[in-house]
């Protein structure tokens, strides 16, 4: 048997769960070939089960071992890893759930999986400065309308079922490396909400966004200048309230560490 044939057979037996060892595997001093091969069969599943449990602890707790195990088996069978890092493979779980006929109907579970992945991604996002609000003082009032901002790479805004945040908070009530900041408030009866994720120092944070803050932050993320952000907000409120609210949002974004850069208007107008 060639090396190529041996590897195809060995991998096939691990993926398909053959009871028998692939041809060519020998009996050992204490275990027969099948028992020896089973060490690899079990290790594959155990390693990735541990990886998924580490990446999605709240999902596992919420679903329970049986349902989480079923999800794990479906993921392994339906989408074997093609990532070189096991962590990257595990983080693909929400994508699988969204495409799987059964799991895509499980809004709460899918939302919680997306929620936990966003926290992990915030933790691993590239470093960038997190500017203090003092940098605004260096700008002249005349420059403010044309200021644009760069968000920290860890910032994500994801629309999720409202249940995801509460399920996560419940599972993490004892201890976590994350923190749910005080919400800006949202539509209490809406089934969905937009959650903001980001990292500050070594911690991942999250909070729900109000509709206005979501619009303002999304506008800022797209490079919209401060004047236009105010104009967008003005569609929903009296004009005299807009500047104060926008300044309030901006102040909190600086305090939270969401702002990585600030750009004044290009003097050449290009």
């Amino acid at each position, binding site marked *: 048997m060639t090396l190529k044939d041996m*590897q195809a057979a060995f991998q096939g037996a691990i993926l398909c769960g053959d009871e028998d060892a692939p041809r*060519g*595997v020998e009996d050992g*001093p204490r275990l027969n070939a099948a028992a*020896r091969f089973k060490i690899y069969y079990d290790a594959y599943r155990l390693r990735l089960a541990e990886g998924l449990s580490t990446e999605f602890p709240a999902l596992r707790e919420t679903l329970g071992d049986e349902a989480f195990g079923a999800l794990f088996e479906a993921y392994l069978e339906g989408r074997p890893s093609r990532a070189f*890092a096991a962590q990257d493979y595990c983080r693909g779980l929400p994508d699988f759930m969204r495409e799987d006929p059964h799991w895509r109907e499980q809004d709460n579970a899918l939302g919680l999986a997306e929620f936990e992945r966003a926290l992990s991604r915030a*933790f*691993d996002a590239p470093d960038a400065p997190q500017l203090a609000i003092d940098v605004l003082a260096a700008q002249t009032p005349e420059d403010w309308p044309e200021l644009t901002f760069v968000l920290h790479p860890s910032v994500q805004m994801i629309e999720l079922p409202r249940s995801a945040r509460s399920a996560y908070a419940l599972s993490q009530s004892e201890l976590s490396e994350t923190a749910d900041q005080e919400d800006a408030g949202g539509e209490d009866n809406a089934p969905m909400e937009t959650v903001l994720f980001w990292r500050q120092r070594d911690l991942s944070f999250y909070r729900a966004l109000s509709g206005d803050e979501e619009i303002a932050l999304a506008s800022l993320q797209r490079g919209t200048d401060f004047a236009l952000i105010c104009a967008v907000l003005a569609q929903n409120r009296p004009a005299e309230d807009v500047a104060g609210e926008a300044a309030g949002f901006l102040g909190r974004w600086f305090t939270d560490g969401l702002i990585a850069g600030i750009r004044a208007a290009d003097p050449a107008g290009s």
Partner: protein
Amino acid sequence: MEKPAPLGFGLGLRHRYHAEIVKERPDIDWFEVISENYIGRGGRPLAILDDIRADYRIVMHGVSMSIASTAPLDFDYLGKLRDLARRCEPEWISDHLCWTGVHGVNLHDLLPIPYTREALDHVAERILRVEDFLQRRIAIENVSSYVTFAESEMTEEAFLRELAEKADCWLLLDVNNIFVSSFNHGFDPARFLDDIPQERVLQLHLAGHSDHETHKIDTHDQPVIEEVWSLFERACRRFGAISTMIERDDNFPPLHELVGELDRARAIAAAARIRREAAE
């Protein structure tokens, strides 16, 4: 090519100990980092690595090169590995004598190979290509294994010896892996060590394992056991001063316990050096 000077006694850098290492700067000579923990990632892990690099030398140790696979070499992975090496400036880069998957699949395990002439030629050719791509000589580690193949035409140590010559690579000898495999397959671990060419051995690994009576599994979740310390002493006598580190990947003890194991490794190596010099 001259072998790099020994780094002393190091530990595997793991997230669990980052904060303590950054704060306390413990008496550890160097750190081995798992390449895949940093490839394609930013943020705190890389920032902490940069911080630790300011005071410690590092070595990059990978688990995804899949050097023995019959699938094509993954140059996307190798490119990222090269980028990380340019950033981190490791003393050297190592990976395992194993395969991790074929047909685009990654089983995330260090899978065994039959020790055949065909495998030897195949792996040596791939190591040479990787060394050419990375522009550096790499070190290849023996893995713990749980099966043997009827097709094998030589022992594992003979395979490693020939591979190091043919591919002009270094060897990273994992003493615990030698012990685990010797138990699982019924060979003499001392003979294994004695058959490895001294001039090719760049680094030693020490670790603990789990004992299942009928077999042992390389789990890195226990202290180094006495039999492995004895084998390490033999390795020190045979190979002389050599960079040595302890791997711990689960059931993490307080850092001072791992530093205590390193102190024991230092003492054993020092005693072995005296015996080696006395015998010369």
